[in-house]
């Protein structure tokens, strides 16, 4: 388990970290746009459109609004990008090479997930734009709303597996027994974690913090040029990472020790998850922030606690 520093950098920057995740993430956004377009009787963009968009933004100017602290305003998106890169590395490595997982990586994953909204809130509030501030306050409320059900969902599978805290061990448990999704408590945990992730991604019905028609993009309103490109890339990478997260924690991972076709089929799992995300996104209007809060603190929280209780009695 002693990796050389060179390998660590390779993992973080090339595969399965930054480069791999960003390419797949951008392809995911293409899938998103294409499926959405087909649902809406449109043709949809060509495969490379997300890449064109990204590189076009790189060539634009970045404006820093008057009165915004430069370091925070410009630094926040970079921290977000870095944390999502590390996050995807940890998740993917723990599934690809279960032996290389480290103790407590689950906690690290949780922290890194929390980084993205915090970074967005930080950048938006520092932009000195009242509309961005409104977006930041909405993001903050949303974060407070979905964090607790998410914790309960993870606690459910930890209890279910008998107190394992390493992602590799959790996967091993699923391989020897069954994926958590196929048990009553695990299914409830999956549903609540799934809804939390929809909110984390900021997709309809929880795109409240961006709400183009209300607050013109809210949290990302003041960003432009390469920094906006970084934000968009972060979101695309998060998209991929979320699907991997749900697959690894609840559905037995995308790669299991079993041989043959299962390898390839395993990669369809995250794809199936994003198709589900896209469907929800396209069949719902945006909720109001108070409605989203109520939704997470009543329905989703109850669901996740129910799952937790079921897990403690072994269902």
């Amino acid at each position, binding site marked *: 388990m002693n990796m050389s520093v060179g390998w660590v950098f390779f993992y973080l920057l090339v595969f399965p970290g930054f480069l791999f995740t960003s390419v797949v993430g951008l392809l995911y956004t293409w899938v998103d746009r294409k499926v959405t377009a087909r649902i809406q009787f449109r043709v949809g963009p060509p495969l490379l459109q997300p890449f064109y968009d990204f590189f076009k933004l790189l060539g634009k100017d970045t404006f820093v609004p008057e009165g915004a602290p430069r370091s925070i305003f410009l630094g926040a998106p970079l921290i977000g990008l870095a944390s999502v890169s590390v996050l995807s590395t940890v998740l993917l490595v723990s599934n690809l090479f279960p032996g290389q997982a480290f103790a407590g990586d689950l906690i690290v994953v949780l922290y890194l997930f929390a980084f993205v909204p915090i970074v967005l809130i930080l950048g938006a509030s520092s932009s000195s734009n*009242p509309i961005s501030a409104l977006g930041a*306050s909405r993001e903050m409320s949303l974060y407070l709303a979905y964090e607790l059900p998410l914790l309960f969902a993870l606690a459910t599978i930890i209890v279910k597996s008998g107190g394992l805290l390493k992602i590799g061990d959790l996967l091993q448990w699923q391989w020897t027994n069954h994926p958590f999704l196929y048990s009553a408590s695990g299914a409830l945990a999956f549903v609540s974690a799934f809804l939390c992730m929809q909110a984390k991604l900021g997709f309809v019905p929880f795109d409240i913090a961006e709400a183009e028609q209300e607050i013109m993009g809210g949290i990302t309103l003041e960003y432009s040029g390469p920094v906006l490109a970084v934000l968009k890339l972060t979101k695309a990478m998060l998209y991929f990472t979320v699907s991997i997260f749900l697959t690894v924690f609840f559905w037995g991972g995308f790669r299991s020790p079993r041989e043959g076709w299962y390898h390839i089929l395993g990669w369809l799992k995250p794809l199936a998850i994003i198709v589900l995300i896209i469907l929800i996104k396209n069949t719902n*209007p945006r909720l109001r922030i108070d*409605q989203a809060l109520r939704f997470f603190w009543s329905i989703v929280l109850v669901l996740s606690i129910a799952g937790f209780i079921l897990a403690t009695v072994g269902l």
Partner: protein
Amino acid sequence: MAALERKVIPIGPFHPLQEEAEYFKLTVEGEKVVGLDIQLGYMHRGHEKICEGKTYDQIPFVVERICGICSTSHPFACVQAIEDAAGIEIPPRAAYIRTIVGELERIHSHLLWVGLAGHFLGYNTVWMWAWKYRESVLEISELITGNRNHYAMFKPGGVRRDIEGGMIPPLLQVLDDADKKILMLTKAVLDDPVLHKRLEGVGVLTPEMAVEYSVVGPTARASGLAIDVRKDDPHAAYDWIEWEEIVLHEGDVFAKAKVRLLECLESTKIIRQCVQKLKDLPEGEIDAHMERGPDGEGIGRYEAPRGEVFHYVKGDGSLYPSRYKIRAPSSMNIKSNEVAVLGGSVADAAITLAAVDPCYCCTERIAAFNTKGKLLYTWDDLVKLSQEKTARMGGGS
């Protein structure tokens, strides 16, 4: 709870919510809207003045361009005003054709609104679906009038084109399809629990306030006011056929959406009856041939998709009107937002502002700013100018 800091959230002058330039200054405490200042005047185009330089035959083309969506409502009111001044009766065939074109426009306008409302709620699937269904209505308009929009169908005294026998089967086909799809859309909207949550009780305009602000059209009918020019002051063929006025009492955005969707179904009913009557009528005159310009005043009213359109014309016997005056429905409806958005959240304000189906450039009548933003005329100055002009024209009536 201590009072939150008051902030201004601007919606406009350029904002993704609205396609046109306008400025809604929302004063908010956190998310709650506590004040609204409506500033219009960005889109003034001087249509009334342009009309005074056009012949009566040309005016319908000009007023048609007041609005792209209700592009037949303005000519409808316009030709009626001119006919009123000239004392012309139009042939029944023309009346039916006018009604058909007017109602086709209502269907496509309401579907357009439903789509936009979906978009404003982040529900882009509804947007795209509604607009797809609208497409067949536009295509049939093209078949009948030659244009998808700006039909150029109306003239003082009648219509420019007949609806021939060959156009009727495709028209009926489109109506059948539209009926099915509108029903499907209506059910989808009315049964969606999330839409219920999002729209019910939002942006309520009470009947008292609706009267106070003199709102018109679906905005009024959703607040329990049974006003519809087509019923109250029947013209064209509206008196000769069976149809119902949709009136709801809730006054919220949901009721406004419902009124519009149900009105679409009424419109297909009206068109079907008109087509039936057209078939029974002998082929014949569609134009009463106005020979000379009217000498005197006339008014025309029509129930546009957004409410009552009012046109006034004053002629002196020449080819040109000496005064032309237009009141578009949005000028009444937009102001009612002042009460409708209060107390709601910013999210509700966005959909409430859009719920009156505003059309700003139709409404704008005054622009009194110079490029430095300095006010050139106050309201009183403008009233004085107007009175002076009326006096110059011969004392008015």
